């Protein structure tokens, strides 16, 4: 089987508009969560979120192009451009894939169209409403921009979408179906209607995202995108490309039990599955980037799943929950959290988790807090897991290491 590596990464997220600024903010433990700047904010009960600030799409796209781009696809395209600029695209376009995760697709477009016809009584919406709001729009836009004519599709598995997308790209590369992929995720759900829907579930925090911490009171929404260039280790080495990480394992499982309450067994099987797929044991794991939403239900289930997989060592594996920094990016969460996993690989440090108030006895984990923590990745213990667990019980875990 072929080895698969990441040679390019790009992003637009609440912490930064490119890879370097995002990694710097993560390393500094800077949280982008703050007051939401949205119309009719007074009618929302939750008024905080992690927005992409200072976003001027007209600096990235001309007017004709922009007419076809929801905020979701704008983020995705700019992230993809950065990833391609970093890695280059050397493979045959017909054997190059684009696989993008998203939970909501062009929700801002949909929200605006519904508002126009229902609230404003208008009789028509923008003619490009459909090509903007399709879940697959970002994947199509990326394929068009770079002329990639191989497999192109979107993956939608709620908050696990990105990990499913990146995992599928990994499997297709490993199996020899394709020679390169742009994979990741994008989300732009911070619209009035999108937030209203979330408000109803009563799982959003009014003040901060505090994963695994005493006193946590819910999740905080974010938005943005991250896109990676994946290719075979052989091709990357042959052309002298800089390798950011090797993807060594992937596993997806389903709880098949509840639409919103996670079952630790499904998460445990996904973590164990990713390790088995990589051909390494639990002792090889040096760090975990948690799903870590800051909800009581997720954090307890995730800690229980870690105990199931790692036994007594579960409480000693350094854990980061970067949603406390960039918010919960839904279908883009796994992609932006994979950026956080590049920090230990590239700079030998683990980013801290923000919002921590003190230990929660229900979550006996070694959470990295306050400031970045140095980590030595060794041959015996150098594997990093990135967890994504979605509503509806859909679990996807990626395993990485230095190439």
């Amino acid at each position, binding site marked *: 089987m072929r080895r698969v590596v990441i040679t390019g990464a790009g992003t637009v997220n609440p912490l930064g508009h490119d890879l370097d600024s995002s990694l710097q903010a993560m390393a500094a433990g800077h949280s982008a969560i703050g007051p939401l700047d949205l119309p009719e904010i007074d009618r929302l009960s939750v008024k905080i979120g992690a927005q992409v600030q200072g976003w001027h799409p007209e600096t990235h796209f001309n007017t004709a192009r922009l007419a076809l781009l929801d905020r979701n696809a704008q983020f995705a395209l700019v992230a993809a451009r950065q990833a391609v600029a970093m890695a280059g695209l050397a493979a045959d376009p017909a054997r190059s894939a684009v696989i993008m995760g998203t939970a909501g697709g062009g929700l801002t477009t949909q929200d605006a169209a519904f508002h126009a016809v229902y609230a404003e009584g208008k009789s028509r919406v923008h003619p490009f409403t459909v090509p903007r709001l399709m879940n697959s729009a970002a994947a199509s836009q990326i394929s068009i921009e770079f002329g990639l004519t191989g497999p192109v599709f979107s993956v939608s598995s709620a908050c696990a979408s990105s990990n499913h997308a990146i995992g599928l790209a990994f499997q297709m590369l490993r199996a020899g179906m394709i020679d390169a992929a742009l994979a990741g995720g994008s989300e732009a759900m911070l619209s009035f209607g999108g937030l209203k829907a979330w408000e*109803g579930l*009563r*799982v959003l925090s009014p003040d901060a995202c505090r994963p695994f911490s005493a006193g946590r009171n819910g999740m905080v929404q974010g938005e943005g995108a991250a896109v990676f260039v994946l290719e075979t280790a052989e091709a990357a080495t042959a052309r002298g490309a800089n390798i950011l990480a090797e993807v060594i394992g992937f596993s997806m499982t389903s709880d098949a039990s509840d639409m919103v309450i996670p079952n630790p067994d499904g998460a445990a099987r996904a973590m164990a599955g990713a390790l088995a797929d990589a051909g390494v044991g639990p002792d090889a794991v040096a760090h975990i980037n948690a799903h870590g939403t800051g*909800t*009581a239900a997720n954090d307890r289930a995730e800690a229980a799943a870690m105990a199931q997989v790692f036994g007594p060592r579960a409480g000693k594996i350094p854990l980061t929950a970067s949603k406390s920094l960039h918010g919960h990016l839904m279908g883009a969460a796994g992609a932006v959290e994979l950026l956080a996993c590049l920090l230990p690989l590239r700079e030998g440090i683990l980013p801290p988790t923000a919002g921590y108030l003190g230990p929660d006895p229900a979550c006996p984990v070694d959470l990295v807090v306050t400031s970045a923590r140095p980590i030595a990745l060794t041959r015996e213990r150098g594997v990093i897991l990135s967890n994504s667990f979605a509503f509806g019980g859909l679990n996807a875990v990626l395993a990485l290491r230095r190439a």
Partner: protein
Amino acid sequence: MRIERQMRAAETVAATIRQILADQARLDPAALGDNARLADLGLDSLALVETLFAIEESFDISVPFNANDPAQSADDLATVGALIATVQRLIAAR
């Protein structure tokens, strides 16, 4: 007369809440005593979220509740009687 009207209104509120709870728990409203705990009626935090939605829509009020930590809710929602009292207080403050 005014007091009588208020009492009748309070009884209607209580009856509506009992009906909403009974629909959620699939029980006879008459079986819902004031001291019955919602958790014992089989209403978990998710069912409570749906119950509160129905109550808020019925009475045009907003009931503060965070499903992450039901125990730390600012209002007492633990029993049928406590929920009715909370709703009546929120209606009065409307």
